[in-house]
């Protein structure tokens, strides 16, 4: 039998006991190294053992519970998806490009972790596996080719649970380099299965499962260790006499062209996916929570703290909702929706007509509110429904043991949303319940204090709260780049009376923007594919570089210094103060 790097058979690659809390286990299958780790939610990840950035083994990285952190540059990768969530060298940027490590299928069963190359079929356990109670033996590594090991095992029949030499033992081959041994003697019968993990062309691991948990477990482990060690010695002596087989050389998949270059501005994708409403509940007065999961039960795409999704509603509208989840929680996204009587019917449609089990179209997560994880102090301020992105941020910071404080401003006790998650954050949370409007500024001022190096504040909530925090922070000497916020909507009246020319530098096209139409609308009419989301200058999705001309911003996404720089605009609301605007598109 010749081993192939493209073999799609399922093999055991680790024992469940190899994955204690927050450990990363170094495995190998068919010549390819694997980083195998269990997240705090119990999920086992089998990834290629190589950080996509500079090729350093992830098995020397740090298991943070929901994310794996590379030892070389601290890049974080999410549990389940292996998507990159944070690049410390550029702490203010969200890793917009989809940087995702290679993952492999995994099943944990019978005390073993099984994996296979991508493209493998469903994991099919050996016959009668589900009926039995299996006791995993200690793995025995052997420096010999897998075919020699399986043949030797077949010939080396022994009574699995008993050393009765009169036992009659039958060895039967199982698919996937497996052997079942059944022994019958006057004392009764016993059975075990052994699998050979092909580590590389000349290296294997024998992984055995004993049927039924023996009473004398330690003694059984010793016996099998002794038996298999004797077998190993024999196999290794025989292998040493033969020429060593050439090691397998698995190929490394190339990264996409997009990842190999470094775009200055990345425009979010418009990819949509379908999600099922797994759970819907009232989390606070006037706030309904929705838990959305993938239809096939798989994990959802990677998100970073502060990210939102667009939810496409049954009535044709689309709305943005922040993800509240913590790190590595990708089996579902939980969002909070506030009943807003003044809105155009987005929240009403979700709250009143969407039920558990319904399927919604959602966008991939996008992040216009990225969280730095390189601060000495992080202050999180949430007002009302603004808790949603802030809660996610707090959960990421808490998991990584980074210093932060969360101030949650609500009118009354019953308006506290996601109470369980808030309580779980413990003493880092300060609730401000029923603060009179006049007292808010003073509270914020006391909370923020004077600015010092590497302090950052993140605010999400109603426009009035954002304005209060921004002006208070400015008065206290906090620079613009230390104050981060996300508007849910743009309350300003957009003046669209101007008319001007737009030149699209990269598309070599000049468009006339008449009064009453946005740049975005005219670009779309001209056949250009442009991403947008809120279309009111709040979300930043349509952010576009400006090369010449002076923009009339009108958005609430950019901060004052970004606006002064005049080097980008939101094409959904921004216009021009000069007769001509040159865009980098």
């Amino acid at each position, binding site marked *: 039998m010749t081993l192939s790097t493209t073999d799609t058979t399922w093999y055991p690659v680790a024992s469940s006991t190899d994955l204690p809390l927050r450990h990363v286990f170094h495995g190998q299958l068919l010549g390819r190294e694997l980083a195998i780790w269990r997240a705090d939610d119990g999920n086992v990840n089998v990834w290629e053992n190589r950080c996509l950035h500079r090729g350093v083994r992830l098995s020397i990285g740090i298991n943070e519970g929901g994310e794996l952190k590379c030892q070389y540059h601290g890049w974080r990768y999410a549990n389940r998806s292996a998507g990159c969530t944070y690049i410390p060298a550029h702490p203010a940027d969200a890793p917009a490009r989809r940087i995702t490590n290679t993952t492999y299928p995994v099943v944990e069963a019978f005390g073993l972790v099984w994996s296979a190359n991508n493209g493998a079929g469903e994991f099919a356990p050996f016959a009668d596996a589900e009926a039995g109670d299996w006791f995993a033996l200690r793995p025995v590594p052997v420096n010999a080719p897998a075919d020699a090991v399986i043949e030797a095992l077949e010939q080396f029949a022994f009574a699995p649970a008993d050393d009765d030499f009169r036992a009659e033992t039958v060895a039967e081959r199982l698919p996937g380099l497996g052997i079942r041994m059944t022994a019958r003697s006057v004392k009764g019968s016993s059975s075990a299965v052994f699998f050979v993990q092909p580590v590389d062309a000349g290296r294997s691991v024998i992984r055995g499962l004993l049927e039924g948990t023996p009473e004398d477990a330690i003694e059984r482990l010793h016996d099998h260790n002794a038996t298999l060690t004797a077998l190993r010695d024999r196999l290794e002596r025989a292998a040493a006499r033969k020429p060593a087989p050439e090691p397998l050389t698995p190929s490394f998949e190339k990264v996409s062209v997009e990842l*190999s270059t470094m775009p200055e501005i990345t425009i979010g994708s418009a990819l949509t996916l379908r999600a099922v409403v797994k759970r819907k509940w009232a989390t606070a007065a006037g706030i309904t929570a929705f838990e959305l999961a993938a239809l096939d039960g798989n994990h959802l795409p990677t998100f970073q703290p502060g990210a939102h999704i667009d939810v496409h509603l049954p009535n044709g509208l689309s709305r943005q909702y922040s993800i509240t989840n913590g790190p590595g929680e990708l089996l579902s996204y939980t969002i909070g929706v506030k009943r807003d009587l003044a809105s155009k019917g987005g929240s009403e449609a979700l709250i009143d007509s969407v039920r558990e089990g319904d399927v919604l179209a959602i966008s991939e997560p996008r992040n216009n509110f990225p969280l730095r994880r390189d601060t000495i102090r992080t202050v999180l301020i949430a007002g009302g429904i603004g808790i949603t992105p802030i809660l996610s941020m707090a959960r990421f910071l808490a998991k990584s043991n980074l210093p932060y404080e969360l101030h949650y401003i609500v009118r009354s006790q019953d308006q506290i949303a996601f109470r369980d998650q808030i309580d779980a954050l413990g003493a880092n949370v300060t609730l401000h319940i029923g603060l009179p409007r006049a007292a808010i500024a003073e509270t914020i001022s006391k909370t923020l204090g004077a600015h010092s190096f590497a302090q950052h504040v993140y605010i999400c909530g109603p426009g009035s709260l954002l304005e209060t925090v921004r002006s208070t922070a400015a008065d206290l000497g906090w620079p613009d780049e230390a104050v981060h916020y996300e508007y849910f909507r743009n309350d300003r009246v957009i003046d669209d009376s101007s008319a001007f020319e737009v030149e699209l530098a990269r598309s070599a096209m000049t468009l006339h923007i008449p009064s009453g139409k946005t740049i975005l609308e005219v670009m779309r009419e001209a056949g250009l594919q442009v991403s947008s989301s809120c279309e009111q200058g709040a979300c930043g999705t349509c952010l576009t570089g400006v090369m010449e001309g002076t923009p009339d911003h009108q958005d609430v996404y950019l901060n004052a210094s970004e606006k002064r720089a005049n080097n980008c605009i939101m094409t959904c609301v921004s216009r021009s103060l000069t007769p001509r605007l040159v865009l980098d598109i």
Partner: protein
Amino acid sequence: MTTPSPIDAVTRDLWQVIAAVDETPVGVVSTTLLLDQRLAFSRDSEGNPVVWLRTNEEHGDEIDLATVTARLPVIIGYGYIWTSFGNPPDHLFPIPEYAESDRVNMSCGSIGVGSSAPRIVENFLDMGHFPYVHTDILGAEPHTEVKEYDVEVSEERDEVLATRCRFFQPRAALSATEGIEVEYIYRVPHPFCSVLYKSCPEDVSRQDVIAIFLQPMTAETTRAHLLQSMIDSTSTITDLRRFQQTIFGQDKPILENQYPKRLPLDPRAETPIRADKSAIAYRRWLSQKGITYGTIPMAS
């Protein structure tokens, strides 16, 4: 034993470092490996180095160097012996600061690393790893940001040059006592050598110089020779050496856990970020030069 890698024409004509002059005994054979070739070398009674292809000499043999006729080219530079298998240039790349009379110049040891020379150069150019690999010395979380810097390939000097590199460091040098934003300049004047200049804590108008000279023993194993040229009136040479060896000792296990060991020159092999501008320029420069030893060239 892996088969020797072919030596490309550019690498063949380069000067290659093999040992510190001070550590090479007179009249006694020293042995080493360079580009998969076994070398023997020694110094004559005047202290001049002699290098030749090793035959049956053993390390530590006494030798009369007059009997050695088939000699390889040799040059002394920055306290080290350099040789070549081809036609090397007349001079080594310049490090003018080395000649300044008030500097403490020292070799800081020759350390074996299970990785390729270009991977080690790239690690030397990299600032993003400071908080994670040189924790509490060259960097510390949460100060992880790599600020924008400039990179150019100087055509005149045929070297990669990165300037305006800044990084927050808790203890940038032995003479530093508190955290400062340190400014660096990096040069790559030779495919397997790099020189860095960093703010000197003792004299703000001058810069400390640290260089790494790599001896590719094979395509995937290297000896790293370190040089320090410092403005430091208080520390002992032992302390300065120990500091540099601590730093390199922290890089070594990371380098040895990096795969593939040869530096991939295909831009799609790995995922660069803005902080890797100097590494991108270095990879392109190697590619344009046609360096294949220690690299995985672009598939043509």
